[in-house]
């Protein structure tokens, strides 16, 4: 039996293999499906969550390495979808299919915590590991600037 600090709560885990990546715990055991599976190798960013506010790839984060770090998923980013990043995403019409966007928004939110007024270079540097097959990059960049102004 172990515990996990998740989206502001502490939950108890029973019978879960500590080697299991956080992604599958979230999706298959806890039903938090906002965190997406895209590659399983930490190559696409679809599964990005925050560990103590830092972006992390849940698909290559074994539970055993989470320890008592606070895990934040897209479901815990805001109470009703009103984080400045989420609002900016809607304002700019960023999502096309939308599948990678939780990971994009989690990476963007962590960037803005670290650097409240990023320039294009900061944004490109932070977001370059988050793939979007629909190609929404231009709007992601614009939405991050808008979110920075709104913070």
């Amino acid at each position, binding site marked *: 039996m172990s515990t996990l600090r998740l989206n502001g709560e502490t939950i108890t885990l029973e019978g879960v293999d500590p080697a299991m990546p956080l992604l599958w715990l979230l999706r298959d055991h806890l039903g938090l499906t906002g965190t997406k599976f895209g590659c399983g190798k930490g190559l696409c960013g679809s599964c990005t969550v925050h560990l103590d506010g830092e972006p992390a790839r849940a698909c290559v984060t074994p539970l055993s390495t989470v320890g008592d770090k606070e895990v934040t998923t897209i*479901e815990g980013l805001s109470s009703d*979808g009103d984080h400045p990043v989420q609002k900016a995403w809607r304002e700019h019409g960023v999502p096309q299919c939308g599948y990678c966007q939780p990971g994009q928004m989690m990476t963007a939110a962590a960037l803005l915590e670290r650097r409240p007024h990023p320039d294009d270079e900061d944004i490109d540097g932070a977001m370059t590991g988050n793939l979007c097959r629909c190609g929404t990059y231009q709007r992601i960049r614009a939405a991050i600037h808008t979110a920075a102004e709104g913070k």
Partner: protein
Amino acid sequence: MSSSDERSIDVVNLSGDLSRRRFLAGLIGTGGLLLGVSGQAACGTFASFAGTAADEPFAPDVWISLAPDGALTLVAHRSEMGTGIRTSLPMLLAEELGADWQNVRVLQAPGDRAYGDQNTDGSRSVTQFYEVMRRAGATARRMLEQAAADQWGVDVEQCTAAEHQVTDESSGRSASFAELATLAGEQSVPADGALRYRDRKNWRMVGGDNAVPLADEQGLTTGQGLFGLDVRRPGMLHAVIARAPVLGGTIESYDEDAAMAVAGVRAVVPIPGFQGPHAFQPLGGLAVVADNTWSAIEGREALAARFSSGQHGSYSSAGFREQLLATANDDGRLVRDDGDAAAALSRAAKTLSADYYLPHLAHAPMEPPCAVAEASADGCEVWAPTQNPQGARSEVANTLGLSEANVTINVTLLGGGFGRKSKPDYIVEAALLSRVTGRPIHLTWTREDDLHHDYFHTVAACHMEAGLDDDGAVTGWLQRSVFPPISSTFAPFGSPPARQGGGGELGMGFSDVPFAVPNLRVENGEADGHVRIGWLRSVAHVYHAFATCSFADEVAHARGQDPLESLLQLMGDDRMLDLSGVRGGRPPSQTHPWNVGRLNNVIRLVAKRAGWGRKLPRGRGLGIAAHRSFLSYVANVIEVEVSADGVLTIPKVHVVIDCGVAVHPDRIRAQMEGAAAFATTLARHGEITAENGAVVQDNFDTYQLATITSAPQEVDVHIVHSDERPSGVGETGVPPFAPALCNAIFAATGQRIRELPLAHHDLSWS
């Protein structure tokens, strides 16, 4: 959907049809107005291989319900994979009806022929249903206005619907749609001639910017949008499948005990291989079923399954490339014959020729193929991201020996489709596993599965020849393309249909090449398919546009002319393209004729917007390309920077699109922006290769996608204001991109790129 003739639109009042209402139970409420609308404007785009049945006595494509509480429900029969179609089509209806968008609900139809043509591919949803939606809206509006007129005893001509109510213009009194819904349901359907369509200048939503929010935007920004991978059912188990690396390979050995020893693994289930042409059948293999996805993946590792190679075990991309190029340089099957190209080429003062080669590509939607199936003894219910729910339904019914009536296909949001999710093989796999295990099964394709076993975009070689006279005029033209065709997936190996390019593929920017050359010959060479071949965003336009638009630039250089000026000269006068020289294939669209003037217009516009002709230093350059696809016209000017040591950046892409009436301009821009990134992937990085029959690329480290840094930094999109019929948008931004990019690289560095991806080329200069 093969006819290019316009079909009539039928509207039927189903308000009192109890069996139809029972059919829709759960989707709509009781009472009020219920209309079914069928018919499709011609679209003449790529014929579907998936097939759609239009043989039902009356199969509406569109169902509209106006409930007694005023809620307007539209049953969405198209799949949402990122184009915004769940917004654009309802918006057309709401505009014509005079509905308040706040009262519009969009519900997703399950797969059923009763919902008309649901097969969402070929960039044809708006093309095909623009007029249907408007007719539906105008009809419902007239019925509401008539209901109000009857109630008030006034002439219907003085009653006007807007903002969810009908107003009597003479007295100013009004009645809400809610009050009128039931009375409207008692009206007979007015003839088309009695309908009043809103004038374009009065549109409030259609054609405007951000007039209505995307139907799914809240879910897509909160992690609540339901994709196929997100479906959960009580008692559900998770599965992954080990499949033969080589198409048609069979199981040789595996260690079931080792797999079962992995914690959480419940079963190892063999899945039979396909019979005959693979089509949409599962590939076969060994499924590992477990309590969670991770255990299933770990179990599959432990299984250490080995497979035989079968007949395709010697397929290797390097050797196949040589074969394709050799075939492309040999005489081929005649596809189009204008004048006498051979004679013109032999008489030419100057000739040039070039070969172009593009590799296989994978769709790689960010959500890989996946499905949830719940089979019982006499039925099966499925939740899946599918572009083709009716195809999924019939495949599941056939495989499980069920009647289609007992198979339900629920369509979730698609985390990308790009053509991959038109093929329901993965849905059949989940259904089979549920049947065998007696449990709901959640099947995941890992990224490795997706890249190893895709229905790949084909590999292609094109040979081009042009002859110039003493003045530099192009007098003769020969072009030949060779590629394993899509029909190799559906026809017996080695049979002519499995080796020859289909009329659909050749009609994609090749047999309809628009160049004004009096002697022009188009040919196709034969090639076998050794992996599953499918259709990917823009399909054959990808390689045909690359060859024709790149070679057009080579012609400009050969005759010492500015590429823009040369391109316009090659396109020739504004005219309807004469395609009488085309042999076989599908007839050109009657509703959307091939209008060279519209292509010339987007070329001139994009050149102007890009500041064509400005002087740029070495290492920077502009490239131009233009192409018609999916009945729309797109031109690109791309600006590149190539550092002396060969690092490429794409500061700006200029796009001009003419897609007729622009229904949802913001989504059109989004599709053009996205197409630039999608095409960046194929131009810079995209390549699937096989060795000994097996695909080499495993994941996004070896099959790289464009990132925020490798994609164009800025895409400027201009939409031509047009009153022409709407035409395709989702795919049409892709084809001109790669040739425009490579033409720009030539302008910047003098290096001509004839093979993709660019990752293989050293772009350094000195």
